[in-house]
């Protein structure tokens, strides 16, 4: 199978990452548009790649880690562009583009073959609903964490009175806090839906909604962590630095649940090393 679009997208994302990195190091506004256009081109190629995978497999291209990571990266970039529309700060790209690149590189270490026939579990209509909701939630958390990192940096610069170029490149604290304020509850909402649809899917194929599989357990832990954060944020009025730290910590947990659990703990969400296919059952 041809991965030409995937490869083009990856190269463009890496190019965008480098352009954004140069932009950061030199603080030269002139470099930012280059990164942006590379990222846009990468996103276009990436969209074609996903479309191509969908047509090729004749189904939602979400069955293996290669595709899931690819869609994850695609969503991170997509939300980044949406966010860029609201917060016109090129510095966001210097974090989104590398994250997308890393996700795709990690995906590329897995086999992109789709073993035919697909196990029946994966032929369910729950697959796209569950996976897309879960990944969308993760992408939101990723960008919220990026916003958190930028908040911590900007806050440190302002507190220590280092008002230089870097300070000017970063968005205002208020804007960054707004990303957090909207990102946490929205991501939490998607995560909740992801878990519920997962349970419904499990219920429809295995007859049991919840089986304490490691991924499920960690998802629940993540869910509780975010529930606590949203509570702190909305009810106790936590904001600023504390909220930013929570977002970063939360995303660490998300990434562990998403990548670490499958790799370390196994379970029915885990992928078989040889084929990269989901294990068929419990």
């Amino acid at each position, binding site marked *: 199978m041809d991965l030409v679009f995937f490869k083009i997208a990856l190269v463009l994302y890496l190019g965008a990452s480098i352009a954004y990195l140069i932009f950061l190091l030199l603080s030269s506004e002139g470099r930012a548009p280059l990164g942006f256009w590379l990222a846009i081109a990468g996103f276009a190629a990436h969209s074609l790649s996903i479309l191509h995978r969908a047509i090729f497999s004749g189904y939602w291209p979400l069955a293996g880690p290669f595709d899931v990571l690819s869609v994850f990266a695609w969503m991170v970039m997509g939300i980044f562009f949406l966010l860029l529309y609201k917060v016109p700060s090129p510095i966001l790209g210097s974090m989104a583009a590398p994250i997308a690149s890393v996700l795709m590189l990690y995906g590329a270490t897995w086999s992109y073959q789709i073993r035919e026939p697909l196990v029946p579990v994966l032929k369910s209509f729950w697959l796209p609903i569950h996976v897309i909701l879960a990944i969308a939630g993760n992408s939101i958390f990723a960008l919220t964490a990026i916003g958190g990192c930028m908040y911590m940096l900007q806050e440190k610069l302002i507190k220590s009175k280092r008002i230089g170029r870097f300070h000017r490149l970063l968005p205002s*604290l*208020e804007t960054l806090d707004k990303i957090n304020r909207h990102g946490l509850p929205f991501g939490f909402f998607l995560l909740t839906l992801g878990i519920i649809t997962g349970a419904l899917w499990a219920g429809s194929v295995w007859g049991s909604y919840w089986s304490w599989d490691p991924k499920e357990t960690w998802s629940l832990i993540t869910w509780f962590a975010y529930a606590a954060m949203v509570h702190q944020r909305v009810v106790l009025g936590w904001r600023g630095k504390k909220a930013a730290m929570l977002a970063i910590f939360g995303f660490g947990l998300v990434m562990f649940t998403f990548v670490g659990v499958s790799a370390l703990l196994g379970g029915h969400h885990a992928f078989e090393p040889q084929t990269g296919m989901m294990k068929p059952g419990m």
Partner: protein
Amino acid sequence: MEILVVGLNHSTAPVSIRERITFPGNESGDVARLMTLVEGVEEAIILSTCNRGEVIAMTGEPEGTAENIASTIAHLHNLEPDAIREFLYFKNGPDAVRHVFRVASSLDSMVLGEPQILGQVKEGYRRAARAGATGPILNRLLHRAFFTAKRVRSETGVGKAAVSVAYAAVKLAKKILGDLRDKRILLIGAGEMAELSARHLNTQLEEPIVVVNRSYENACTLARSLCGKAMPMEHMETGLVGADVVITSTGSCEPIITRNYFKKVMRQRRSRPIFIIDIALPRDVEPEVNDIDGVYLYNIDDLQGVVEENLGGRREEAGRAENIVAEEVIKFIEWTRTLDVAPTIVALKEKLEKIREGELSRLNGKLSSLGPEEREAVEIITRSIINKIAHDPIVFLKKVGSLSKTRFYLDTAQRLFKLGGAQDETSNGVEEPYHE
């Protein structure tokens, strides 16, 4: 002939003096007209903004005229000349021209590069021109000033980022609080510096400023002038809880805001971020307050540091702007030199001679059939024609040298014949007094 500038601005005079020198009654340029009646003054323009008040004048005899202008400024405002003498600057010749160009280009503003000043200069000129207080020299000077300002704005980055403490404070406030429109300012103490910063911030806000002061009466006065509200000192805590930007400038010897006190305030604020600007000396706010989460405390030195940082890139721009001004000053001074009787006559003669030679060489083909004698005759005839034409204007110009409106006639003559300096200007060579 000389250009004079007499006046005061934010760097030479304190607010208490500046706010008195406002040239009342100049709405239709009458005061500018009055200035032209001062002994020695031929043309005058009055420039009055909240940061400066000055008279730009053209004089035939520089001796003593500046002094006369200074006394007139004082008398206009019911002041003794000696009371304002020390705050005035006197500029003449190229210095005065440079000053006018720098003012119009916003290089002399308190907020470097701020855009309003050009409009204010234009307004001052328009009033004077309407009242007939300006003549060819100041018309030319001001048009060159507008041209210089336009060049500075389009060719340098000076206008892009105004640099000053107040401006830096506003920018910083935006980086912390985002959009300032719905944010609230609290002024603690009614000092002059605090008022200045507050005025600058006030342009960004829709909420009224709250003023707290030990003397409630002073608080009310300041609040009224800022269109804000006053609160007695006992309600400072309420003010601190409600505010987003706080400017303190009390004369207190002890800090009035301590770390423990402000921790309590922050709890009531539910950690809403707050930007505190402490411009008092000794400080009103304990430096440790900056360690509290969500509090961003800057004192005047910190802000000065920010300005320096901003200046880094702008200094170069300002330098380039100064070069443009210097260039334009030289051009203007060169033009004023041509505006004298002798150079005008020379230029007129040269122009006619050039026309004569040009026409002769154009007809060279047709004249080739003529013998040397006949050619000689043609030369003589043409030369005598131009001499006859030039005779009356030259006699007139020589007589003009002793008239009071010398410059006007010289300028008119130069325009009529499109001589020298009049040529590089507008396409038809005619400058109307400024209208907009």
